């Protein structure tokens, strides 16, 4: 670990913030306070955090249905996120989107996505824009193992390679696409094996190791900023919770999941930090305390926020919707 202490502590802090947010979201959902359905990022925090530490505000990402972690790591407001989960007026999408459609274009988050793989073509487009504008920004497109079997994956990677676009394809292989194990539906052992088919660098890493993620993405981001084109990174992780909150999980045993918990990214990293003297017990507690406070504040904000007025449903389809609604 040659990384500066600040960065390491920031990794820890952001992972804790995501975890805390997700645990709260789970709790609220089970209490019936959140409409719709939500997909938790618990166990996968190292990927968003390690990756995003390489980005500037003006860099872009496309996220997924499991996107809370990406948002938080990219610098989103928890208040607006939580209000959106509640369907409230001052949520990120004014209550129109909910968990699966949170976006913050102002910080480069070009949308979570309810369509598996839906973000991949969008990321490629942002990459085209950057190239035409002769900027040195980059795009990270997050997508799941399941998404890697959609046609959009193939089209996006081929396209990004042909035009040498500054896009990092960051696969979050959490071993499952809903009820289906990755091996059942995916013909390769490593999703990064597919990079060969697009003549781009491909690598598989331990997605529960925030430093490995950081460093691998760093290299890819540098290459992209310097005109070296796209990279496919597979971050191997494990989905510790159900596909969505409430998933009966008949497709796996509790034992299997229990065995995976010790490898979850936060406690693993925490041990390292404490052993390495980067973090004291007290600092650690403060971090969790602050995270809780931030999350609680977001809940309070959301609870106190009002619901959008029904007629607001007719806004936001178009910039100019004159005569477009009948």
């Amino acid at each position, binding site marked *: 670990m040659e990384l500066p202490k600040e960065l390491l502590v920031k990794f820890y802090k952001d992972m804790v913030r995501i975890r805390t947010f997700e645990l709260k979201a789970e709790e609220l959902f089970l209490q019936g306070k959140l409409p719709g359905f939500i997909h938790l990022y618990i166990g996968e925090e190292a990927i968003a955090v390690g990756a995003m530490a390489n980005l500037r505000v003006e860099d872009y990402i496309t996220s997924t249905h499991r996107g809370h972690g990406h948002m938080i790591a990219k610098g989103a407001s928890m208040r607006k996120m939580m209000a959106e989960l509640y369907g409230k007026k001052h949520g990120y999408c004014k209550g129109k989107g909910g968990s699966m459609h949170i976006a913050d274009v102002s910080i480069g988050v070009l949308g979570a996505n309810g369509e598996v793989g839906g973000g991949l073509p969008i990321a490629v487009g942002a990459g085209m824009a950057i190239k035409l504008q002769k900027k040195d920004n980059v795009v990270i497109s997050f997508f799941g193992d399941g998404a890697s079997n959609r046609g959009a994956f193939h089209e996006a990677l081929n396209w990004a390679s042909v035009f040498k676009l500054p896009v990092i394809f960051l696969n979050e292989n959490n071993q499952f*696409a809903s009820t289906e194990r990755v091996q059942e539906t995916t013909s390769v052992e490593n999703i990064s094996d597919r990079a060969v088919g697009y003549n781009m660098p491909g690598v598989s890493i331990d997605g529960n190791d925030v430093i490995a993620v950081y460093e691998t993405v760093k290299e890819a981001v540098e290459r992209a900023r310097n005109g070296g084109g796209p990279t496919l990174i597979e971050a191997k992780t494990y989905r510790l919770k159900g596909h969505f909150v409430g998933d009966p999980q008949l497709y796996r045993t509790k034992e299997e999941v229990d065995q995976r918990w010790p490898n979850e990214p936060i406690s693993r990293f925490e041990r390292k930090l404490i052993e390495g003297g980067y973090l004291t017990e007290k600092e650690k507690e403060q971090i969790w305390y602050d995270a809780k406070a931030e999350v609680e504040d977001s809940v309070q904000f959301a609870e106190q926020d009002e619901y959008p007025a029904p007629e607001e449903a007719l806004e936001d389809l178009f910039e100019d919707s004159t005569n477009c609604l009948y």
Partner: protein
Amino acid sequence: MREITFSEALGEAILEEMSRDPTIFTYGEDIAKQGGIFGAYKPILGKYQDRIIDTPISEEVIFGSALGASLAGMRPVAEFHFADFLFTGMAAIANQIMKFKYMTGGQGKIHLILRGPDGISKSAAAQHSESIETIFMHIPGIKVIIPSTPYDMKGLFKTALRADDPVICFEHKMLYKMKGPVPEEEYYIPFGVADVKKEGKDVTVIATSRMVHESLAASEELEKEGISVEVIDLRTLVPWDKETVFKSVKKTHKVVIAHETWRRAGWGAEIAATIQEELFDYLDAPIRRVGAKNVHIPFSPPLQDFVIPDKNSVIEAVRSVL
């Protein structure tokens, strides 16, 4: 008569026909382990496990392979998971399945069913809530069934499983758990035969799916005020039962059409345009259409409620034609 859920009725239909016809098999995402997100495949689990297959998230192949499997002698039932994801494999449907027979001058009997949920549920938002049956009524080449009760679900699906043409079946998410009478004996419901769910004499309400129930609830309220509403459930859109509709219009002279899909260019427009075209002199009032407002389905409950039509929208429309 025993009562079972909509979802159980579907499962029974598949199971019964599967045990009769070894060419039937079924596949899609997340169906073989938990019996499907809405439980429709539960009756099959453990029985015909080799004929219920979990697939990759590859909708273009989920749909396109159904055509290939059919041409090669099987009878696939492919799930589209959510109507919104018909779009991710739309080419295989609109350019292949729906055109093959015609383009090839009638070669092959196309035995295949695409089925899955549509419509709203509790705040599933814009990418998991759509009703897009109209598109399949507009583009020629597939039969469209859209049942509203467990009885209709089973009877229509059994017919679909013996049909010699491609069929798409839209099942509303809010209906899966609804119970209703379904006889133990085998029965089939032919396509193109609407069901008069309630007789009446003042106004004809034409609906499908969830809106049949909203219309029935509306008619109950209106009945209290002495307004007699006839509720017709089309049950299938391709073909649609002009005869039953026309008979009713000739009796009531007033029409309301109710669907959950967008009002603009929704199938209600087709029915309205046809009625005014062919029964112009029978109409005593403009035909009213009830449908979703022309925006996407929003997440927040008050917004969703505002966009989506319900009982009250039907009541209002009925009142406006009296």
